[in-house]
């Protein structure tokens, strides 16, 4: 009997020089090039060499801050970033197989624009596009747009007004994703006909208004951009609690969660499963893929991961992270990933502590260790990101009329 191909997935989260606040101070960090295209191309090509399923690229509508909820005035950490969707678009023509999943914020932006931007990323990458949905609850980011007031997080996450706002922002985000998805469907796959005999470029019956009327906005459609190659590019979301789990269950194909230890990991899987049961009622919907986020420091020839982390912590602000921080040899980290796989996680998203050191260590260390265990592919197998993740590559169009047989 032929062995079935492994289905455990690996993603890499790209951000600045890496996820440690002092990563930029490391000798190989290319700190002068963080805003240059060559830097990003090299990172994604390196990840592609490791057969990684997809990279994510972080983005926010405000400057980075040591505290994720309020701005700061520090000068000893990387500040400044480029639009992540444009980085992904820039990288697309010079990569071939790897998925490209930039973060795009939906709070102050227009779902019509977001939808066509992600569709276009999917076109320029020939079916490798996705999108990590993000909400913005910070009052300083709201001031960048000046169009609405947000209470901000200064009162703390436990404050009732803050909690109400989080629920509202997640509901609004769910609407934004719904609008984007409908706009992707607003062009049926065979809408373009180029029929010279009837002088018709499209079959107008196959291009649809979406007429979306929601609590937060209404959008008429159709999209100006024809259906993306994947039909529905991959939607991902990072979630730490029940409200965002439910957003992910409603809207996403992939959810990134942040377990700390195996017991916590089991608990989170159960919570996500409950959210899926509560929110994902459409029987045609595919499974929500659950990825565990881990911030990694891998042992290198020169220094152990733990020693590197300790040294960097001593340079300025110590690392603090929503995701578990793990250190060790490639073999021991692969062992931890194998445990997560056996619990039922579909994959992990690794956040390299220092991109210059930990990305090659993942590609040349953790990936071969996983392959040796039969847990990870030895080549790319599908042409699209959906296919790579085991999602259906023939996505039905919700507006297509059922064909009578």
């Amino acid at each position, binding site marked *: 009997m032929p062995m079935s191909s492994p289905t455990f997935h690996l993603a890499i989260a790209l951000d600045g020089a890496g996820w440690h606040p002092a990563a930029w101070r490391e000798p190989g960090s290319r700190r002068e090039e963080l805003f240059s295209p060559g830097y990003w191309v090299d990172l994604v090509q390196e990840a592609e060499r490791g057969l990684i399923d997809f990279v994510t690229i972080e983005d926010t509508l405000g400057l980075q801050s040591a505290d994720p909820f309020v701005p700061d005035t520090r000068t000893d950490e990387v500040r400044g970033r480029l639009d992540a969707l444009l980085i992904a678009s820039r990288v697309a023509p010079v990569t071939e197989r790897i998925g490209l999943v930039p973060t795009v914020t939906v709070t102050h932006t*227009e779902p019509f624009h977001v939808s066509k931007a992600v569709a276009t990323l999917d076109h320029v990458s020939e079916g490798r596009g996705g999108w990590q949905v993000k909400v913005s609850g910070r009052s300083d980011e709201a001031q960048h747009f000046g169009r609405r007031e947000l209470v901000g997080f200064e009162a703390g996450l436990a404050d009732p007004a803050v909690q109400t706002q989080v629920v509202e922002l997640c509901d609004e985000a769910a609407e934004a994703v719904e609008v984007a998805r409908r706009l992707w469907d607003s062009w049926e796959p065979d809408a373009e006909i180029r029929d010279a005999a009837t002088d018709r*470029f499209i079959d107008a019956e196959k291009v649809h208004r979406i007429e979306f009327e929601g609590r937060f906005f209404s959008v008429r459609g159709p999209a100006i951009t024809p259906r993306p190659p994947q039909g529905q590019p991959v939607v991902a979301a990072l979630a730490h609690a029940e409200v965002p789990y439910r957003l992910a269950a409603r809207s996403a194909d992939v959810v990134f969660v942040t377990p700390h230890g195996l017991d916590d990991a089991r608990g989170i899987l159960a919570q996500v499963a409950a959210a899926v049961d509560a929110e994902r009622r459409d029987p045609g919907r595919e499974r929500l893929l659950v990825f565990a986020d881990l911030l990694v420091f891998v042992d290198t020839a020169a220094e152990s991961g733990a020693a590197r982390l300790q040294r960097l912590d001593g340079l300025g602000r110590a690392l603090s992270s929503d995701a578990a921080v793990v250190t060790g040899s490639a073999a021991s980290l692969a062992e931890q990933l194998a445990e997560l796989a056996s619990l039922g996680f579909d994959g992990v998203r690794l956040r390299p502590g220092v991109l210059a050191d930990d990305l090659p260590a993942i590609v040349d260390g953790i990936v071969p260790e996983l392959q040796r265990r039969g847990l990870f592919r030895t080549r790319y197998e599908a042409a699209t990101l959906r296919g790579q993740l085991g999602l259906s590559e023939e996505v039905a169009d919700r507006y297509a009329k059922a064909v009578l047989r």
Partner: protein
Amino acid sequence: MTERSRKQIVLAAYLGGVNEDILWEHPEAGSQIDFSTFRHVAQTAERGRFDYFFLAEGLALRERDGQVFDHDVVGRPDTIPVLAALAAVTSHIGLVGTLNATFNEPYELARQLASLDHLSGGRAGWNVVTSFDAFTGANFRRGGFLDPADRYVRAEEAVAAVQALWDSWGEHAIAADPVSGRFLADARAGEFEFSGRQFDIGGRFTVPRSPQGRPVIVQAGVSPQGRDFAAATADAIFSPFHRAPEAHEFYRDIKARAAGFGRDPSHVKVLPGTSFVLGDSKADAEEKARHILQQQLTPRTVQVLFEQAWNRDLSAFDVDGPVPSLPPLVEGPPFIQGRAFVFGDRATVVRGWQSLAEEKGLSLRQLAATVFGRIDYTGTPQQVADELDAFVQGDGADGVVVGSHLVPGGLDEFVDLVVPLLQEKGSLRTEYEGSTLRENLGLPTP
């Protein structure tokens, strides 16, 4: 020395889409959405040492009587992501995209354009447009909110706010010094504030100063207000005037207005849109042009073009028959949506066309060929090069935005046959002088 030095012709390449001039039925017509099409045209233009590649935008599909247009090309990708992707497969050509200042906020406009400038090594430009129609607004959460009278206020403030954001990071704001541990040299890098009638914003901008400092600003303005706005703020103006004497008048007017704003007039490039047909002889090219025009003006295209002027259903009229004597429906709801009517007052325009048709005995289709048909340059490559060069040297313009009826291959023969002749004359560079769009256009770096 009295002779003025030869002007360098500015060339931009326009990849057309949703207008009636594109021959999508042509056997060599390619995809209007695949990236390979955009790559082909941008690389061809770069081979011809063009200054920039240009994409237009429209934020709602055009409709006729509530039905999406189906006779022209429909659909296009999002402008800025395509330009970011093109930055990967080109190295010198400028990448100019149209972004709407009504349905985008300054923070996102500034972010996208500054990011594109970083990702292209300083080749980004913004064609600034505004719209105010409720039809387009129906695609947006904020709706069609803009009073038509506020168009230029919105555009002027959007450009000023975007430039304030671009200026918010100084050239030396980043130290990235591992020894002192200082990444930011300036703790206030990115701080901005802008207050006006349309925008009241402040905070910190995410994108460090881009290679050009300020990406290039392109505009199209014809009204006195639009001309002033363009002359005061634009680096290049996309002009509709491509023939003497209007072109010369417009050119003189823009340069005078720019000088009036204290600017060096040579820092505002006037660039009319243009099209060309090449042949073995003038007669051969003209014959080809007639054939192309005939293919462009299909019966449905003719009907819809006139329906926009008449603002009513003209499907009952034979395009090879006489021009309808009906008046336009001036007060009625728009019969054609999503496309600006640029010919002026409907009643006057239609009356003018009716009398022209009567005078010359034109059918609807012949009238369409007269008023819409437009191929600016026909002839041998030498004739086209001579004419174009004379037009620019004679101050009809600083250059042209070249489009083609055939996507993606239409620009190839211009680059292969006309460009070398312009280079021989010394009117077009043989190699790029600079690495940024500003440098290649001869604009100062702010």
